[in-house]
């Protein structure tokens, strides 16, 4: 359940995001994730609420684990540009309710791609791991499977000793207008503390920007499951820059600077309460954004399987 007050306008969204995964033998996995939401918005700041129903297929893919270093994915998958879309956007993972401003750079048009992806762990040792992902997407205009014709890759290097990850992404948009988008990300999750630092930078033909997010769960006060240990303060700084007019990249038409202050609470039984306040500074006008959400994640076997 998501609630937002953005510059005085109220929105509410009950959301259901089912994920289905079915292993088929030792090498195959079929996966699907959908998004159903009713979007309630107010007519003005005091008027009645109206709602619109949205549904989308975020992924519908078949994974073939060819060997320890290569997995082939066919179907509809989350576009692997930077990390937010693939790794942090799920409702039960995201720290802030709102995606970063530059999230759409590199993931246009829908955040999902229809085609083929190769990915895997190219090298792994105690000191360093190297992962790769490369994909090609065809243009699709079918309602639930809309995607752009594009190709791209991501390479990330992870150092387990320090829990530092760095990576770069590249996407080539191959439709009527062809252009490149570049990205980079940096993660740091020190062993010594529950501090987590994640950041991304993206550069498209018409805009660029970055976000850096820090979180610090207070688990060192009597453990993660204590009253205080379930609290997780957050901070995110983000900026976007409009380099030149460019329609369709999803980034605001003016430079935006935004500071997000969040406070999440991890309740028992996979229930999570997220809240945040954001102050947006933009040439088109400054605004306050308040977000609150309550998420419940649950897992269950869809049919009788065998114990692993």
């Amino acid at each position: 359940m998501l609630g937002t007050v953005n510059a005085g306008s109220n929105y509410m969204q009950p959301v259901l995001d089912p994920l289905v995964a079915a292993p088929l033998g030792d090498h195959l996995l079929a996966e699907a994730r959908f998004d159903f939401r009713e979007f309630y918005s107010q007519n003005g700041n005091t008027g009645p609420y109206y709602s619109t129903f949205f549904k989308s297929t975020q992924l519908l893919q078949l994974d073939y684990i060819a060997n320890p270093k290569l997995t082939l994915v066919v179907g509809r998958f989350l576009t692997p540009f930077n990390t937010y879309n693939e790794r942090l956007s799920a409702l039960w993972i995201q720290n802030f309710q709102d995606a970063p401003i530059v999230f759409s750079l590199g993931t246009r048009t829908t955040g999902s791609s229809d085609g083929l992806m190769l990915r895997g762990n190219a090298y792994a040792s105690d000191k360093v791991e190297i992962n790769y992902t490369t994909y090609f997407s065809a243009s699709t205009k079918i309602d639930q499977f809309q995607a752009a014709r594009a190709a791209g890759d991501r390479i990330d290097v992870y150092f387990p000793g320090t829990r530092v990850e760095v990576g770069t992404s590249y996407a080539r948009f191959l439709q009527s207008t062809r252009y490149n988008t570049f990205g980079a990300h940096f993660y740091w999750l020190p062993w010594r503390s529950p501090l987590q630092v994640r950041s991304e930078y993206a550069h498209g033909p018409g805009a660029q920007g970055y976000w850096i997010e820090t979180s610090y769960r207070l688990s060192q006060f009597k453990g993660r499951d204590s009253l205080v240990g379930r609290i997780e303060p957050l901070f995110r700084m983000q900026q976007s820059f409009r380099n030149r007019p460019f329609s369709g990249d999803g980034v605001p038409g003016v430079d935006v600077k935004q500071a997000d202050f969040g406070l999440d609470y991890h309740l028992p039984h996979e229930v999570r309460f997220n809240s945040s306040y954001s102050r947006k500074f933009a040439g088109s006008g400054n605004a306050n954004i308040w977000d609150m959400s309550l998420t419940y994640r649950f897992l269950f076997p869809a049919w009788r399987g065998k114990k692993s």
Partner: protein
Amino acid sequence: MNTIVRNLTLAALALGSLAALAQSTKTPQPAPTPQSAPTPAAAKLSDPGERAFQVNCSRCHNAPEQLNPRITGTVVRHMRVRANLSAADERAILRFFNP
């Protein structure tokens, strides 16, 4: 571009402060469960499954509080693809969830 440089510098300073905070933090009490917080000794965890979980999975999310043994294999297979887990890490994490 000056704005970018100025703000990236501020971000770097903030990161430096966080680094100092992280390094000065005292050792937390480890718990041998998937929910345990990362510890200084995590890099030398005796359980390879817990180490694999801390190294890979917890970069993005917490562990589920409970996993039905009948779906653990499916969940870990899903994460093998999503997180580019090596085959060894997949086996280790599977054993960690279902000792």
